[in-house]
């Protein structure tokens, strides 16, 4: 009896020891693997971000020494905004134009891409033939390089291009010069963005949809709800947490849009600055006007804007989602 007890303790202690060892090893392995990501993130993420904060208080031209200027860079930024509010043209208040454009762009793109992604996901969630093909074709834009996508769309959007060809079938005589007309450029960019991002978010919605319990649908069906009502009253409310996620990610992406504008409107923002964005202005400050300090101040402004918008949105809708 005693012997068995003893051997049991021995075995126990051995097990716990080997468990300890395994645990230690596990911790070590985890730290190693995390360490790589953390180190890279520290260097290229946090260090760069903190350096930008530091830079926003300095005047610098890359070659010479840095000169501390206090809040002068922020003053330049706000002066530009105030001047824009007073109706100065694009070339005298580019940052304001960028801000105005990006807000309009975000207001178009985020709701559109979210709704479209949801609808696409609803289709992809059906048990119909060839659904895999649909899923792949919806997702394809997400894995295509945005620069190449924009270049292709520039062709499609030409005055005598394919898009106008189809539009004229519906509305004869309506053939805007999408890329060269300042009244249409931002919409053209928005369309490309919606097309390019919906597929990506569709996957998120699809995953969320597949976790909605079947019985809710069955109950709704018993109550006589058709497919559209089931979508509106069952699917959409059940997707709320995912909608919050998609909208927040969409807002972050839209507010700092750069690539599409750079390719479709060009680095100077296209006709009348119609395709100018804040990110484009930051880039021009840093590399054309050679004012990295002002560029850093403007980046901080953009960061604050994104932070506030996403924070307010999350705060408001998370509560409803949790209810």
């Amino acid at each position: 009896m005693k012997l068995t007890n003893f051997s049991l303790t021995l075995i126990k202690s051995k097990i716990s020891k080997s468990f300890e060892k395994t645990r230690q090893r596990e911790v070590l392995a985890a730290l190693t693997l995390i360490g790589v990501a953390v180190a890279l993130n520290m260097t290229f993420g946090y260090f760069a971000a903190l350096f930008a904060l530091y830079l926003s208080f300095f005047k610098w031209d890359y070659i010479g020494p840095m000169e501390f200027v206090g809040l002068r860079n922020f003053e330049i930024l706000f002066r530009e905004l105030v001047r824009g509010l007073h109706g100065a043209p694009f070339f005298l208040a580019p940052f304001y134009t960028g801000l105005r454009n990006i807000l309009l762009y975000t207001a178009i793109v985020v709701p559109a891409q979210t709704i479209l992604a949801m609808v696409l996901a609803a289709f992809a969630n059906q048990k119909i033939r060839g659904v895999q093909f649909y899923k792949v074709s919806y997702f394809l834009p997400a894995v295509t390089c945005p620069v190449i996508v924009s270049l292709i769309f520039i062709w499609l959007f030409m005055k005598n291009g394919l898009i106008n060809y189809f539009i004229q079938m519906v509305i004869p005589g309506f053939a805007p010069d999408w890329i060269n007309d300042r009244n249409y450029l931002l919409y053209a960019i928005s369309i490309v963005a919606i097309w390019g991002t919906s597929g990506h978010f569709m996957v998120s919605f699809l995953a969320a949809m597949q976790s909605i319990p079947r019985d809710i649908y069955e109950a709704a069906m018993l109550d006589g709800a058709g497919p559209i009502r089931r979508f509106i009253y069952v699917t959409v409310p059940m997707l709320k947490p995912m909608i919050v996620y998609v909208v927040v990610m969409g807002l972050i992406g839209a507010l700092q849009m750069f690539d599409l504008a750079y390719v479709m409107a060009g680095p100077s923002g296209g006709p009348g600055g119609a395709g100018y964005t804040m990110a484009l202005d930051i880039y021009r400050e840093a590399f054309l006007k050679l004012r990295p300090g002002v560029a850093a101040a403007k980046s901080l402004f953009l960061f604050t804007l994104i932070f506030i918008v996403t924070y307010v949105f999350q705060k408001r809708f998370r509560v409803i989602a949790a209810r």
Partner: protein
Amino acid sequence: MNYYGAISRTSAIIIAVILIVAVGAIAFYTTQKPTPSPTTIIQTQIQTQVVTKTLVQTQTQTRIQTQVFIRFAGWSAGETEMKNYEKIIKMFEEKNPRIKVKYEVITQMFHENIMASFGAGVAPDVFYLDSAWAPIFIEKKALLPISDYVSEDFINQYYSFLLKPFKGADGKLYGLPKDWSMLILFYNKKLFKKAGLTKPPETWEELEQYAKIITDKTGVPGLAIYLGGFNRYMPVALSNGAPEPWFSKPEDASWFDNDVVKKTMEWYINLYLKGKIGREKEGLKPYVVAPQDVGAGWLGDAFGGEKVAMVISGNWMIPFLADQYPNLKFGVDWDIASLPRGSVKRVTMAYTVALAINAKSEHPKEAVEFVKYILGPEGQKKLVVEMGHTLPSIKALAKDSAMWPEHAKSLSFIEKYDHVQIFLWGPKSGELESTISDIMASAMRGEITISKALDSMKQAVQEMLQK
């Protein structure tokens, strides 16, 4: 039982340490100045020696050669150019076995990249320097004064007007031109003949008239210009007597108050406003268009595709036409002429790129050797004359038998010009060109009035140059 299979604890530690050190090293390397470029020492005898930095001093009479690496950065006008550079670098290395050149091609945003590399302390030893960017680099003392290292005779080989942008306030030269291009008038001979015109336009007024005649007679737009383009407008202003532009302080913006500037700017903007927008309102064919109006990407495409009869562009269009439109024959289908005259004189624009040396280069002497070879008669013959992309900056090469006839003809115009204006508006040339061009484009599209455009130009320039 080993939970992790083959990985033992010690090896896990080793892997962890290696990974952390590697990442740390990368992080450290990216934020730090690199160590001096590697110096290989080739010895013929084993002897005691003292090596300091890159200079090798020997206490015995051993012949010791140090091999020196220099980094050379440029953009590329295509694969042929890159291959030619590689070839010429090889030739240079054969002649100078001590020097090894590392050729780095930066395809996009070249000067921004170079700027950033100066900021990070990893700038190349030798690099291309566009005239418009030169003042920033010179002012910041980022460049080696090359005139301290080469003889006066060597410098006198070059066209003197090409040296101007690279001259510092101290009178020293901080770069030597590797090649250049100038604005020329390209005209389609077939369309001229169809319209009953026998010779290219002589004055700016004739340019507009001819464009109208060609459009009315042939239905093809007579002239294509860019929307905007401060540098394309400049010959019009200067040839009509406007003062040479130089914008370095806010008061210099008063250039836009000059009557000639106002008048010529109005004329230039009206070319498009009347020639395109006005004509279309009347239901007529436009006689002035922008390349995108005729479905072309740039002037070269518009002219090569025979969608317009005349364009004013640079020598860079010549190899493009030869390559993309081989059926269009020079001298038969198209020809070139000097830019039209203004009321006072005849002026053209010149664009040049220099090779400059980093002031902090560890091997200034070797870098100078390399620059001298690339820019010298031998290098330029191979890289510029034979390739036919641009014009040689060495005067003597103009008569070289390998010169393309188109380029040779454009060089023969030099004597006709009273002034050759280099693309350089002051320390902020790039920003200035882009801002003024945006305003010009806006006025050309009719979004703002011409007087509003002129006011905006002045204000924008003033603000740009403050403090």
